[in-house]
Structures are given as structure tokens and as C-alpha cells.
């Protein structure tokens, strides 16, 4: 698996609401509610983290197949990059 390391943007702040994690961009005020996968990826990125490490965390937490997890993580990270929530180092 890729060893690209990803890190969070400092520009977002979050809060727990019900079982979800919602976030607002400090810069733009844009709002987003994270789904379960995105929430788990965001939490994994508490410290800069490689893609393989993120997958290991999610596999342990959700008991999913590695291939399925890798696809979901890749999609989520790309969405986060587009939204400027996270970026590759």
C-alpha cells in the first residue's frame, strides 16, 4: 500500500452532534457533516498518518475487508483534499 502521509488542515473546527462529527471552516464558514468513514479517517489523522496506517485503523475498528477499506479510504481522502480538510504531505 501507498506510504503517502496525510495530514489535517488547521482551518477546520469540529463538534460532536448525535453520532456525527460536524465541522466548519474557520476561513470560509463552509459546513460539513462527516459520515462514519470520514469521521474515522479524520480521527486517524489526529497525527499525520500514512494511507496504510489509516486502513489498518479502520480495518480493526470496522472489521472490513482490506480491499474494500482501501477503496473507501482513498475516496474519502480525495474528497477531503477537494474540500481542503486534509492534504498529502
Amino acid at each position: 500500500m501507498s506510504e503517502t502521509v496525510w495530514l489535517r488542515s488547521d482551518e477546520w473546527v469540529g463538534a460532536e452532534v448525535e453520532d456525527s462529527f460536524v465541522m466548519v471552516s474557520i476561513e470560509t464558514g463552509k459546513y460539513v457533516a462527516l459520515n462514519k468513514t470520514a469521521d474515522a479517517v479524520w480521527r486517524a489523522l489526529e497525527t499525520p498518518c500514512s494511507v496504510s496506517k489509516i486502513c489498518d485503523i479502520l480495518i480493526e475498528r470496522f472489521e472490513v475487508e482490506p480491499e474494500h477499506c482501501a477503496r473507501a479510504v482513498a475516496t474519502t481522502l480525495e474528497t477531503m483534499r477537494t474540500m481542503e480538510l486534509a492534504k498529502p504531505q
Partner: protein
Amino acid sequence: MLSTSGQPEPATLVAFDRAVASDLPVAGALLGRGAVAHTRIRLADARAMRPGPLYRWDAEVLVFTAPDVAEYRLRSDAIQVAPSPGADPQQVAALLIATALPALVWWRRALTLHAAAVVLPGATGAIAIAGPSGIGKSAVAAQLLARGARLVADDSVAIDTVSDGFVASGLAGGYHLGDGERRFCPVAPDRSLRRAPLAAILLLARDARAPSLTPLGPLAAMPCLLAAQHRPRVPAMLGRRAEVLDACARLARAIPVFAWNREYAVPDLTAREWDELARIGG
């Protein structure tokens, strides 16, 4: 009354549950007899304004500039108003209550919603009716007042966190009606409330969907509450976006929030709407 300096003493008023001494009229503020003012609104000499952004910082002063109207210089406990030469005094006063005072509410760390708020007859808690300009917040409040409700706020509601919940306050002395030229409709003192516990928030919309009053769970309420902020540029300038998110999250978890869709063609509240409001706000 003149002060010892020979200058007229500013009127002491109550706005957003705070005593304010003001050189300018503040439509909707309550009389603050005997109150010690913690906020001062001063009228400065007219001066020409330089072009620039609507909001900017000048050292520790937040400056809001309304072209051809006035410059409002804000500190946490003061507003200095410098009109533009030839500016309409009514416009100067209107923006004081529409923008400068809500900005001070943000500064004291209260959440500020673009909303009216009333307490229905027999109730103790306020229902806030939020929505964009022109949606009919004040018109709804006026109908509720005609049926015995008491006014807490007209266009902007301050929501302060207290130990056992949230408190709503605003300019409770009257409301503004009308689309073009808005007229001020004062409310008798016994029909005004300086502050009231917040009981519910109704997010008003008027579109082609069937009329409805639908409870929103906290997650669904969140983006709506964030969108209902009044003058959201101000908390951004104050570096308070994180606090606002947190405040909205606490509010969404603790206070019932409803999406209220009304028909454009039906300005008067229906019997069903009355019953539902009484159930929510009673």
C-alpha cells in the same frame, strides 16, 4: 436633562438585556430607568469616509462602514457612530440596530440569530422565529402579539448560555413591518420582555412545498442554525467560528428546532399553525 458639562445626557436604554447609554435613538430598546449602562453609544461629528471593506480592524476597534451612511467603530463596550455628511439620520439609526448592536452581541460571546422572538400567552419560554430578511418573521410576531404574546426580539436575537439553559433577548420595545419603507410598531411596556428562557427555534421558510412544521433532529438542525446567524461576518472577524459551531451544537442538542414552511399566498396564521405553535411554545 443636561449634564454638568451642559451637554444633553444620553438616554439609558435596555437592548439585548444590557443597559446602554446612547446619544442616538435605538428603536425597540426598552427604557432603562435606574440602570447603570455598561455600553456607550456616542455620536461623533460627520466625516467623509474613505473607500474600503465593509468590516475591518483598526487596532483593537472593529469598524463597520456603510457607504454614504455612517462609520460604526466598535469596541466590546462601546459604539462610536460617525455619519457620512448629509446622511439620512434614520438610515444611520437603522444600521445601528441592524448591524452595530448585533455585532456587540457577538462580541460578548452570545450567539446572534436573525430572528424574532416571542413568548406566547401563558408560557414562560420564548420561541425564536428565524429566517432571512423578508421571509415574514416580524409579520408572524405581530400576529402572535395581537393574540396576547409578548415580544422579546424583532430582527436579531441574542442567545446567552446560562447554567440551566439558554436565554433569549433583543430589542423588545417594538417591531418593524413593511418591505420597502419599514415602519416601526411600538409595543406597550407590559407586552415586552427584556429576556426570556429559550424554549424553541422555528426556522421559517416559504416555498412551493406543502405547509408544515417539522421537528429537526440535532444533526439536521445544525446547518440551519449556522445559516441563521445574524451578521456572520462579525464572529468570523472576531475569530469566533469555533465557538459558534460549539454553541450551535449545544443549542441543537438542547432546544427543540423546527423547520416551518408557510405558503406565500397565506399571510395569516392558520388555525392549525396556531395550535401547533401553542403546543411548541406553551
